């Protein structure tokens, strides 16, 4: 049973005050200032007047920025969907793996997750760029094919055209999937691992195929895990800065890149603050949706 705080005031104060103080001063205060700035206006170079205006939020509705918001949601949504499709079989395989293999597979999923994000992004650049490994390999294959064709006396192939794999939306989605796949696999695994396997066995015994069992038994049972995996993947993907910055082209900017520009180059803090809080609100909405969905399920079950 939890203890009432008054029964051990000294200990309670000692353990609560430092984290509370830190959280308030070094998190809530900075966030609060940004929130206030979102209702402010630029006065001169560094002065910001808190005028209580909503003009910064209205500016975010400008088609130029609205398009970026919609595009960011689309990219994050697509990333989440691909992660789910790619990650679900992986989570399933881990769940039913023998204990020893399970440990290694979990480790294999988590190791890239612990590796520096910048290094992983850089590794992708090296793979995707015009003279990168993918284009190199394709070039060799093409040339090999070319010499076979020439050897058979069927004429010559056109010289190899490297594919444009980097600095476009494709690269951004690929990069986001690459980075966020572990975020999806771990919650899925955690949900599947808790599942009552006798239900699957019953379904298989009664003659349902593996795919049918997967879609009618496993997926509905794993729904809470799927929901949390979707949210855990979607939120960081929506707010990602580095991937679109390094892998994207001029038209693959996402919300975070626009926010960064307001604070660093454009020096329009109030507008950047408004954009940043719009992103926060979108995050909260995603979390609230998940909470509502899982609660509704809980009531039914």
């Amino acid at each position, binding site marked *: 049973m939890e203890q*009432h705080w008054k029964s051990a005031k000294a200990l309670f104060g000692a353990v*609560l005050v430092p984290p509370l103080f830190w959280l308030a001063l*070094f998190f809530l205060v900075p*966030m609060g200032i940004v929130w206030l700035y979102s209702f402010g206006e630029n006065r001169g170079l560094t002065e910001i007047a808190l005028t209580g205006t909503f003009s910064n939020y209205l500016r975010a509705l400008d088609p130029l920025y609205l398009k970026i918001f919609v595009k960011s949601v689309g990219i994050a949504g697509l990333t989440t969907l691909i992660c789910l499709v790619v990650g679900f079989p992986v989570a399933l395989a881990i*769940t039913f793996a023998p204990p020893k293999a399970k440990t290694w597979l979990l480790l294999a999923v*988590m190791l890239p997750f612990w590796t520096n994000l910048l*290094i*992983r992004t*850089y*590794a992708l650049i090296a793979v995707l760029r015009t003279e990168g490994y993918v284009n190199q390999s394709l070039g060799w294959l093409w040339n090999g094919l070319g010499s076979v064709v020439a050897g058979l006396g069927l004429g010559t192939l056109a010289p190899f055209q490297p594919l444009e794999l980097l600095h476009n939306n494709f690269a951004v989605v690929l990069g986001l999937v690459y980075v966020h796949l572990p975020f999806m696999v771990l919650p899925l695994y955690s949900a599947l691992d808790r599942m009552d396997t006798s239900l699957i066995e019953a379904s298989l015994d009664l003659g349902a195929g593996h795919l049918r069992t997967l879609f009618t038994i496993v997926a509905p049972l794993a729904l809470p895990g799927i929901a949390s995996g979707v949210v855990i993947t979607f939120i960081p993907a929506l707010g990602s800065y580095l991937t679109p910055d390094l892998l994207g082209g001029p038209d693959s900017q996402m919300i975070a890149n626009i926010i960064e520009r307001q604070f660093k180059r454009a020096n329009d803090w109030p507008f950047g603050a408004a954009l940043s809080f719009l992103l926060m609100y979108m995050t909260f909405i995603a979390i609230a949706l998940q909470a509502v969905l899982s609660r509704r399920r809980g009531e039914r079950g």
Partner: protein
Amino acid sequence: MAKRPAPGPLEYLRRWPLQLWLAAVGIFLYAPLVALMVFSFNDSRRNIVWQGFTLKYYEKALNNASLIEAFVNSLTIAAVSTFLSLILGAMAALALWRFRFPGKAGFDGALALPIVAPEICLGVAMLVFFAKVLPWPQDLPWPLNLGAIIIAHVSFSFPFVAVVVRGRMASFNRELEEAARDLGASEWRTLKDVILPHMAPSLVAGAFLAFTLSLDDFVITFFTSGPDTVTFPVKVYSMVRFSVTPEVNAASTLLIVLTVVLTAIALKVQGDPASTAGGHAALDRPKDRP
């Protein structure tokens, strides 16, 4: 009647479509990293075709004073912020696990905010905070000039530690504490001799999590670092912006090796990788399955 549940149907790992899938995902996740590491030994500036083995890019990376400085900065920041995050995180977890108090739900919710808030929002908040409220002098002697970055890192790390520690404390048998008290141990003595030992594994997991979070962070550091307080990710970022060079490959390989070593140590201490996965994902799964 007593038909033994055949283990066969559920051994998905032994079915070839799934094996193929796993192999493809494995290649997707690891091929870029392996290529990066292999080509750090490649004796070619252009770094695409294998020209022969060399260590010269390691020599170059290790002689690059600004790169080394950034690396040392990163390790220092990670060490200090891990230490502070452990203390604050354990305290927050204890307060939430142990006590009933007014405003508890509020504290709990606020503590989750740094975990869910997008990095970019935290980054700009820190930029504004250190520009307007607490200007951090840039000319302080090392390592004090890293203070702003350390503060920012603690702010997003310690809530993660709190989650991990609290998950562990859920399995604590409160009768042990009562027994200790009945036997005459004081509040503090109970904390030190009964509660802390139970908490210990989660402190290891929390430390590992906080250290990697700090070492990994680019966005928030990008907004709090100045010209003299460059961290490894920020430095690599500026190098990558210009070109893909074998030197970056060499430096990255060193960091990957460091990550793998740290992971191995954490696992050795911890035993089960699932418990270092971070957060609740692994902590609340059932103990055993037949």
